[in-house]
């Protein structure tokens, strides 16, 4: 199969959906002629014109309101917020309006929109351009939260998100944009709520999200050379969560390490840990459930400090080794 980048996979999903359905349009800051701050929408302005690839003023709340109102009246907008940090500016509309309108109206309204936004550290952008705020949105009933970790998942999940009749928060990662992987040329969907085993193993389960899936796979490859076989599970959609493959994997291995980039306290890992502890997998645990997550601090600018603020491959290898060897 041909290999393209995560960024190209996203662009292909947008292009194919816009060709298929005239109700789909893109709206955000610098998404037009500029092609998006990270280049994801490059070329779409040329193909679809300014009426369907809409540049906005710097008005994040306005963008969120625009996709809410447009979705409420028959369109399928795809909004873009340039950095996930700025989702804080858009959150009134997303949290109080879009997430609740269908419920408040007694089920009589449908809001099919996607809000794309890149999260994550590693680019030297410091504290206001590096956050991973997925759990803010996981906590809001009415929203779905998607976090693809590969080019294949990026395309299939974005198409599924555009076709979904709910507001979807679609969280990309800046460091994944250039990652290459096999992606079919034709349109396809990955259901929202389908986890995937990215690597099979019997000694230890790692549940990881977004860029941490890539790092966990690297860690797993290293550990394999030491004779430790790691199973890597990617939830892919945090909400709705497909818990079954996670629980089954933990029952198989008896040991679980949860890895995410967001700050540990109040992060998604706590939810996963509780879910495993509440499940039938509890009786199969041979060690405590362990979380490896971002430090509880803002992302620092300095390259070395930034590197150490979030889990890296060597941290995952070390923690997984300890867990697998019964030292935790």
């Amino acid at each position, binding site marked *: 199969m041909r290999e393209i980048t995560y960024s190209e996979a996203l662009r292909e999903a947008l292009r194919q959906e816009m060709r298929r359905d005239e109700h789909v*349009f893109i*709206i955000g800051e610098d998404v037009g002629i500029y092609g998006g701050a990270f280049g994801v929408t490059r070329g779409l302005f040329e193909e679809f014109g300014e*009426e*369907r690839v*809409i540049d*906005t*003023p710097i*008005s994040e*709340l*306005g963008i*969120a*309101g*625009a*996709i*809410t*109102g*447009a*979705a*409420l*009246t*028959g*369109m399928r*907008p795809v909004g873009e917020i340039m950095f996930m940090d700025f989702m804080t500016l858009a959150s*009134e*509309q997303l949290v*109080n*309006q879009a997430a609740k*309108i*269908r*419920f*408040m*109206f*007694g*089920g*009589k*309204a*449908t*809001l*099919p929109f996607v809000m794309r936004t890149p999260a994550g550290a590693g680019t030297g952008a410091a504290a206001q351009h590096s956050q991973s705020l997925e759990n803010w949105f996981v906590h809001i*009933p*009415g929203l*779905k939260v998607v976090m693809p970790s590969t080019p294949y998942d990026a395309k299939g999940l974005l198409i599924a998100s555009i076709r*979904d*009749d*709910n507001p979807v928060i679609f969280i990309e990662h800046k460091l994944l944009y250039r990652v290459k992987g096999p992606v079919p040329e034709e349109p396809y969907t990955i259901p929202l709520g389908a986890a995937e085993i990215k690597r099979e193993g019997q000694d230890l389960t790692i549940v990881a999200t977004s860029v941490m899936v890539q790092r966990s796979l690297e860690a797993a490859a290293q550990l394999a050379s030491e004779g430790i076989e790691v199973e890597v599970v990617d939830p892919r959609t945090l909400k709705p969560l497909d818990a079954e493959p996670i629980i089954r994997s933990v029952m198989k291995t008896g040991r679980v390490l949860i890895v995410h980039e967001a700050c540990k306290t109040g992060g998604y890992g706590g939810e996963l840990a509780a879910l495993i502890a509440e499940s039938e997998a509890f009786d199969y645990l041979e060690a405590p459930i362990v979380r490896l997550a971002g430090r509880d601090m803002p992302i620092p600018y300095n390259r070395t400090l930034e590197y150490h603020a979030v889990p890296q491959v060597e941290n995952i290898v070390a923690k997984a080794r300890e867990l697998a060897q019964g030292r935790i």
Partner: protein
Amino acid sequence: MNVEKKLELLRQMYTIRIFEEKAEQLYALGKIHGTMHLSIGMEGSAVGAIATLRPDDLILSTHRGHGHCIAKGADLKRMTAEFMGKATGYCRGRGGSMHIADPEGGNLGANGVVGGGIPIAVGVGLSLKMQKRDQVILCFFGDGAANLGPFHEGLNMAAIWKLPVVYVCENNQYAMSCSTRRAFAIQRISDRAAAYGMPGVTVDGNDVMAVYEAVSAAVKRARAGEGPSMVENFTYRWRGHSKSDANVYRTREEIESWKKKCPIKRFRALLIEEGALTEERAKQIEKQSYDAIEAAVTFAEASPEPTLESIEEGVYA
């Protein structure tokens, strides 16, 4: 405007007044859960503005939205049932007073967040324009909302894209307890329209015909593709902000002086003066509204509560 339509506007104003007076009674009797925001004294604004619309046009309302809902043609029975949290209500008891919506009837919802509808109107306007539908969206907000960020983002976006939006500011002079004198350094909120490159006018919000004329011009402009406008209806709420308001921030004299400017009495007197209405006919219209509300309350009281089995319905599509 023909006589028939004028009498219809009077009927709507009575219906809103009587609905809200009834709502107060039901609250006092403990039949209403939560709180409510009454627009008594502001009926001219809702009725005059919405009278300019076609049935297929859309509105976005506010927390003080009973008047908008009635003027947009809501079924009083379903509206009252929603108010009482019943399964037969517009939102099946999920929304209540602050979230009554009737998308089929063009009411895209009241809103519990001040200014919450202003950015949504941008999206609705954009959607109407993209789909080449010749409808317009009337977005109500209060004086308090004009000091929020969403006001700035929303009006600017509507203006740069020439969207078919009419922003109707219902200036009742108080954002809860904070008077416009304390919250604005300008006299007229409509002066802000100029900053977004759209027309803005201020009218006497207690003069239903003045509201109608001003909003008509704005609707015509929006429908012609010439972009948004702002109309400020200067008015006054007789009641407190919500049910917990002890009115300590204003004088009894001030409230009484505004009661003398009642939009309903004023319009009724005008119609009698014009020869369009007799005292007897006026009483009939008032009675008609009263009977409709009574029937709605009877319907709502007899309606079932939502079932517990359905509690999570509507969270996701």
